């Protein structure tokens, strides 16, 4: 065997191991859903069942937690996406040091551990406004860092924005409001959609921050954690399986849309160059 072939073989084996490592645990967790053992496991196999989906369906507290998560998610979209948009619009027109400083400040929540985001929000709102943990603080705390993700998405799209479009509209007598509504916003629409999707997913899966600001409200992720520690049955696996299936669908759809958009942009760039 030549050295090159050996290297290819080793590389292939490593990749198989790596992707196996990524997916096998999720597969085992999914498989345990269909085992009729009362504790979620695949060893020993006690026989195939779908009854844990029924148990999940009948779980009233799960539905309540899902409702809470959806409300928080909607709140985060409503708060974080406009904040991220405003931040990106501002950064796009700033230069040099002011921009660097603001940018660093805006992304700092992403480099802060989630528990600290939750704690600082909890302390601040109680001390200044007398607001204690609950739905409102959960939305506020999550938005403080999710707005940064939204800002990054908007900034990336604004970077490719052709300013001449706005200039031309202004020269032709359009007001600033008209320009924003008719030109800037439509251009940003794909980014608004992806920022909303990202904001919702980030909110939905958040645990570390939510834990400190949730008060007596329970989101679905918090509910799952509680169930794992007290009262674990394969119904939790059934819920995980459903969530993972939805996530995979969402992620694949998002990737396909993103790549189509990237190809379209690349295509128009080529067209411009050849023109």
């Amino acid at each position, binding site marked *: 065997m030549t050295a090159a072939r050996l290297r290819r073989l080793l590389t292939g084996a490593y990749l198989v191991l790596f992707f196996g490592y990524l997916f096998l645990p999720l597969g085992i967790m999914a498989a345990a859903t269909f085992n009729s053992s009362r504790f979620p496991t695949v060893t020993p196999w006690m026989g195939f069942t779908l009854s844990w989906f029924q148990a999940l369906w009948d779980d009233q507290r799960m539905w309540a937690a899902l409702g809470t998560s959806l409300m928080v998610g909607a709140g985060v979209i409503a708060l974080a996406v406009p904040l991220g948009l405003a931040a990106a619009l501002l950064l796009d027109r700033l230069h040099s040091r002011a921009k660097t400083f603001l940018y660093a400040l805006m992304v700092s929540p992403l480099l802060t551990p989630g528990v600290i985001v939750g704690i600082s929000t909890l*302390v601040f709102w109680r001390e200044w406004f007398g607001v204690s943990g609950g739905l409102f603080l959960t939305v506020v705390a999550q938005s403080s860092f999710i707005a940064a993700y939204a800002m990054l998405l908007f900034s990336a799209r604004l970077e490719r924005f052709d300013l001449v479009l706005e200039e031309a509209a202004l020269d032709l007598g359009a007001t600033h409001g008209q320009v924003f509504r008719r030109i800037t916003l439509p251009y940003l629409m794909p980014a608004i959609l992806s920022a909303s999707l990202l904001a919702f997913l980030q909110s939905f899966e958040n645990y570390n921050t939510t834990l400190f600001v949730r008060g007596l409200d329970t989101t679905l992720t918090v509910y799952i954690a509680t169930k794992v520690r007290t009262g674990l049955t394969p119904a939790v696996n059934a819920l995980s399986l459903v969530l993972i299936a939805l996530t995979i669908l969402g992620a694949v759809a998002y990737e396909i849309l993103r790549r189509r958009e990237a190809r379209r942009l690349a295509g128009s760039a080529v067209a411009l160059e050849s023109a």
Partner: protein
Amino acid sequence: MTEVLRRYGPVLTGAILLAVALWLALLVVLPQLMMIGFSFRPSLPPSKLGGPEDVFTVKNYLTLWTNSIHLSIFLKTIWASALVTATTLAVCYPVAFYLAQVAPKRRLPLLILMLVVPFWINELLRTFSWYIILAFNGPLNAILLNLGIIDEPRRFLGGDGGVIVGMVYVYILFMVFPLYNAIESLDRNQIEAARDLGAGWLRIHRRIVLPHAKPGIAVGCIMTFMLAAGSYAVPALLGGPNSRWFTEIIYNWFFEGGNWNQGAAYAFILLVLCIGFILGAMRLFRVGLADIAK
């Protein structure tokens, strides 16, 4: 600032500035300052607030020094997070290099998608999957028993080992993407040239790929360390009373000890640790903030 006004007009500019100010002041800066200020005050009943006992104090910080259990948990959080970071870096580097430089172009979209998909899956669920694997009557024990490596099932849950293994799994994707992005921008001709000039693969990596990947390594290490040190979900699910994490101590100060001031001090210590790691990584890899916050 005049350019902002010229482009958006007075009304929009006002709205934009107001939104950004609200975000940064009410949601980011003031809460942090409040938490820090809070950590330098004693915990008092409401009737004594503002009274003679409500003074500036570093007592809450000294607690960490005098409480040997908390101190040892704090130190463990540091070295365990560093271990998680180093392990993910070692595991991800070959994968990132393969994807960025070696993989055939037509296979790449699928491979990237296979990385993106688990990245989107809820951190808590990925942790939970290891709860099943490591359980007393779980598949890992079953396999080891069948292979004859152990004679009776072991308790993998509730110890530091399980927590560290879980963290490597949960945070590994935060390492692989920054590495991939950094190595991908390396011109393949540089590697070819080095090979033509007789460099072995070890030297190619040490002298060309690794230096080029520095910003990516820095970002990956910063994200992974921050997430590991600040993790609550993984130790809560995979750990136990004997493997407590620093975040769990903080949580207990807030919701069991009822001493928010003490909890705020511990939270600030954790924040300082993470900032220290960020600055250290930036110095070590000689990268600026602009390279990191991409």
